């Protein structure tokens, strides 16, 4: 399984593929890390005169992860099925479950680099610019915990949707299009319905609005639901963090069932 994880990571990054396959990962890593590097640089120069919160980076990370998952999930599953490589894999001592787990691990590792990396970079920068870095580090270890929870949840959320879609089409372009189009459409639809409906129940539209669920998670962990720039749907929904995490885990479970049906039924 380890060999398949490593191979899938390399393919996800476009390693040993045509140069065009490397463009998307490079651009996305730049998009995710450049803001964090800039913020870290500003902190290094101006010290504690200015404060950056983790939520300032979350917008970049969420957008980047959406695109990355849309590109990566089809890369993980579609080619193997379209090119019939599965028959070779399954003739090895590799079960269908092993295959799926390997693909999920590879996807999680790649998504994790973007979900955790920039935030941990910012945390490191904050530690280094503090008057007493050691004390700051121990005082803010909970920040690392929150970063890990945030990164894990949004990576799992986007990865689950992406893999669930990719499990049902052999065409990478179609899977990517359905993913991005679906997320944008559902988010827009939920917000439109929210505006049109005048009832307390409209707050539950948050659960069909993927980008607002993700935004709510970052606000729960790093921000404030009542901030000036917060979407009215998120503000009015005011969902408890545990409910948001439960919604993400529900989506992951549904995607897991979809993949189970697609791959683990024997023929």
């Amino acid at each position, binding site marked *: 399984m380890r060999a398949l994880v490593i191979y899938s990571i390399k393919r996800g990054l476009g390693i040993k*593929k045509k140069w065009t396959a490397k463009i998307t990962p490079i651009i996305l890593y730049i998009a995710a890390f450049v803001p964090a590097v800039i913020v870290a640089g500003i902190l290094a120069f101006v010290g504690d005169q200015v404060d950056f919160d983790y939520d300032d980076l979350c917008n970049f990370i969420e957008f980047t992860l959406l695109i990355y998952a849309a590109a990566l999930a089809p890369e993980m599953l579609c080619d193997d099925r379209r090119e*019939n490589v599965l028959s070779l894999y399954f*003739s090895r*001592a590799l079960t269908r479950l092993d295959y799926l787990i390997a693909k999920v691990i590879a996807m999680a590792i790649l998504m994790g680099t973007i979900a955790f990396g920039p935030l941990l970079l910012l945390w490191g920068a904050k530690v280094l610019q503090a008057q007493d870095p050691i004390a700051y580090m121990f005082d803010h270890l909970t920040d690392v915990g929150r970063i890990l929870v945030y990164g894990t949840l949004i990576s799992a959320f986007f990865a689950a949707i992406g893999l669930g879609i990719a499990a049902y089409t052999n065409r990478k372009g179609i899977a990517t299009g359905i993913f991005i189009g679906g997320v944008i459409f559902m988010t827009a639809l939920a917000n439109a319905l929210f505006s049109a409906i005048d009832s307390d129940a409209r707050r539950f539209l948050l659960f069909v609005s993927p980008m607002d669920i993700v935004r709510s998670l970052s606000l729960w962990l790093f921000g404030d639901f009542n901030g000036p720039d917060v979407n009215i749907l998120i503000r009015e929904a005011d969902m408890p963090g545990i409910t948001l995490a439960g919604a993400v885990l529900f989506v992951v479970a549904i995607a897991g069932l979809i993949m189970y049906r697609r791959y683990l039924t024997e023929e």
Partner: protein
Amino acid sequence: MTTQSLTKAYGPVVALDALDVAIPRSSVGLLGANGAGKSTLIKLLLGLIAPSSGTATMLGMDVRGDTARIRERVGYMPESDCLPLDVTAADFVAHMAEMSGLPARAARQRANDVLYQVGVDEERYRLIRGFSTGMKQRVKLAQAIVHDPELVFLDEPTNGMDPQGRDDMLRLIQRIQRELGIAVFVSSHLLEDIERVCDHVVMVDRGKLVISGRIDDLMRGGGDIIVRVDGDATAMIERLAARGISSRASGLEIIVASNAVSGDMLYDAIRDAVVELDVPLRSLRGRERSLEDVYIQTVSGVADAEELAATVGN
């Protein structure tokens, strides 16, 4: 390999019907028309699909319970296209070696060796996308043997290849078993391919076992007898027919079918007919059957028996 009442049905379609066969460890050919159940049998033996009923063992292990251990010891070259196109042959075969448990460096070395052995040398650093059908078949073969299996399943290995490529592939298969000591199980609908590379044949037709045995034995036994006499061949044919033996003229020779009377009795009947006609017997020899004769006679025999059974049943 042994199977007991091995059955695989896809809804109402029975792809393999209560197959009972014991196959020795040698070079084995699985022969049958398209749709006869060959690929289904291979997939069942590899544990890629589950049987509807019945059991099978391979290398002494149950194919359902010991699937992982069996797959560590066998290789598989599928009939269909199964190679990723945007990877080099060297990278892909090395990856498949790693998938079989070899460390990365050893896998790379082993992949290079095996690709060289199957005739993909300098081309191994090219993307598979640019390969001809023959080259792709070689890469498929390379990935099947890269982990040094005891047995390799080759499903229609010469499919879609030109005569030269087919000849090369068959020679490669012979080398695999002779020089590398890997037993081969070749599925094909091409009788010549099986005849050329296999010692043992299993014939299936419409999901049922037709015959299984050593090719030499099958080709030797039950062949027609070619008789040459001076004089009137028609009289000889009529005389044999009176004894219940069918025969036909072929040029100067009379071909006597072996299916009416068996063994020495047939030779005795020919001798007696010659004596009764009082004609000189110039030659009398057995005609060795080709695998094609064996296949046609056995399959048509089974079909006749089924038709008879159906008629009696009605």
